[in-house]
């Protein structure tokens, strides 16, 4: 990824199920080439917002507003999507699962086939699964499965990566390792990550947004931890921001971030 990854601009996004407005006239800017984390209580509409960006349908909802890339280019064909569940196809090997994108686009033929295979093997090597390329998903642990999903996401080689709690189902150690790996391998891309875990957000994100209320709004200002990710979670700043983030999650807008000026 040498090109500058585009940012995402969401303007006036609204989503309602009948009389219930999940969010209404919501604006969000996701900076290009950086990690933005979206936190908020369950059911606040984080996943709906991510699906809106991904161009996925919201069954039974009415949707309005604009979602576009900030460089004027198309968005849908520059997005890779990673969900909470690994979504590996149980009938295909690890390697075939990593190759599912080009296969679905009919691109896995001729000379390209070799290139894709080599690239997939290289990515499996980087996520530490080169020796499991021919294994079936049912033979893998949860962490290995999610690493396969990460390799599949990377093979898509899209500048924008949307992730919906991709690490939440893992045990603490696997989660920690996968956060490191994701930060390393997704560097330079625009990442929008949904998480439930404030510490995870502070470890990996350049910017942490909190979504709260009905209809959902963004708490202002966003929290922007300093220093390169992945960060150690025992630094004074992270500890302070963690508490502030928990307060904000518990009380919404009512809790400003102490000790930090409203820079934006």
């Amino acid at each position: 990824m040498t090109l500058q990854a585009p940012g995402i601009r969401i303007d006036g996004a609204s989503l309602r199920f009948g009389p219930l407005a999940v969010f209404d006239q919501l604006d969000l800017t996701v900076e290009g080439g950086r990690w933005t984390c979206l936190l908020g209580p369950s059911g606040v509409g984080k996943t709906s917002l991510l699906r809106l960006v991904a161009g996925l349908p919201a069954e039974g909802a009415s949707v309005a507003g604009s979602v576009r890339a900030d460089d004027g280019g198309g968005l849908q064909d520059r997005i890779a999507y990673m969900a909470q569940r690994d979504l590996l196809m149980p009938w295909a090997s690890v390697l075939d699962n990593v190759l599912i994108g080009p296969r679905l686009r009919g691109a896995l033929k001729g000379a390209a086939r070799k290139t894709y295979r080599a690239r997939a093997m290289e990515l499996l090597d980087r996520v530490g699964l080169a020796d499991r390329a021919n294994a079936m998903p049912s033979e893998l642990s949860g962490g290995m499965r999610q690493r396969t999903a990460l390799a599949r996401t990377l093979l898509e080689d899209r500048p924008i990566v949307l992730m919906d709690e991709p690490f939440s189902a893992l045990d603490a150690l696997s989660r920690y390792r996968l956060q490191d790996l994701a930060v390393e391998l997704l560097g330079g891309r625009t990442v929008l990550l949904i998480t439930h875990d404030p510490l995870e957000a502070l470890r990996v994100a350049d910017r942490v947004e909190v979504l709260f209320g009905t209809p959902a709004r963004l708490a202002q200002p966003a929290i922007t931890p300093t220093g390169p990710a992945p960060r150690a979670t025992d630094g004074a700043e992270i500890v302070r921001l963690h508490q502030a983030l928990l307060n904000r999650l518990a009380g919404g807008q009512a809790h400003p971030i102490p000790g930090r000026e409203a820079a934006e």
Partner: protein
Amino acid sequence: MSAAVLLRPVILTFGLLSLWQAVVWISGAPPYILPGPLAVGEVLIAKPALLLRHGAVTAAEIVMGLTLGALFGAISALTLSASRPARRWMMPVLVISQALPVFALAPMLTLWLGYGMASKVAMATLIIYFPVTSAFYDGLRRTEPGWLDLARTMGAGRFAVLRYVRLPAALPAFGSGLRVAAAVAPIGAVVGEWVGSSAGLGYLMLNANARMQVSTMFAALVVLAAFSLILFFVIDRGVKRLVRWQPDA
């Protein structure tokens, strides 16, 4: 496989046969009402050519019916899942068709298609068609939504999604349909033969019954049961191979 697993069917078969023979001895039923396993065994040994000739006809009807029923069922399920108008127009027809007992159609099929194999194949096809269609269609409809989302973000076309996601995901359901089909296919063929035929195990049974050759009737039944069991196990093995990735297949 342990010895117990291998021995169990042997013990079971022997036990049931002994029970059968005991009932014959104790009740004193004459052989033209209830022949014992020994009498039936004698027929099996004495008339292998006769049983084999008729058995082959029935087996051919069953296999052809199964093939056609599975084929039409699969095509119908794919059509139903691919096209909304097909769903709207075909679903009610399918449901209504199930309100008609297929057996009641047997005399008509014989009238239209004659006394030969065609009417029996049609009967078996009809009886198999619905379970295969409904099981496979159900499988195609219940694709994990997450896989469909993933495919969509990857820019997959409808056909690619069907071929690489929905179809493999529906194979276990298709397999269940096939298993049911393998179990009911012999019923269709034999009922067809009872209504009117010139060959087949059903014909042999009716014929033997009319002549009070009850042990021949039983021998035909044994051949039919053996073939049905073999068919079921072959299909079951095939299905298991097809969906090897499914842990509880």
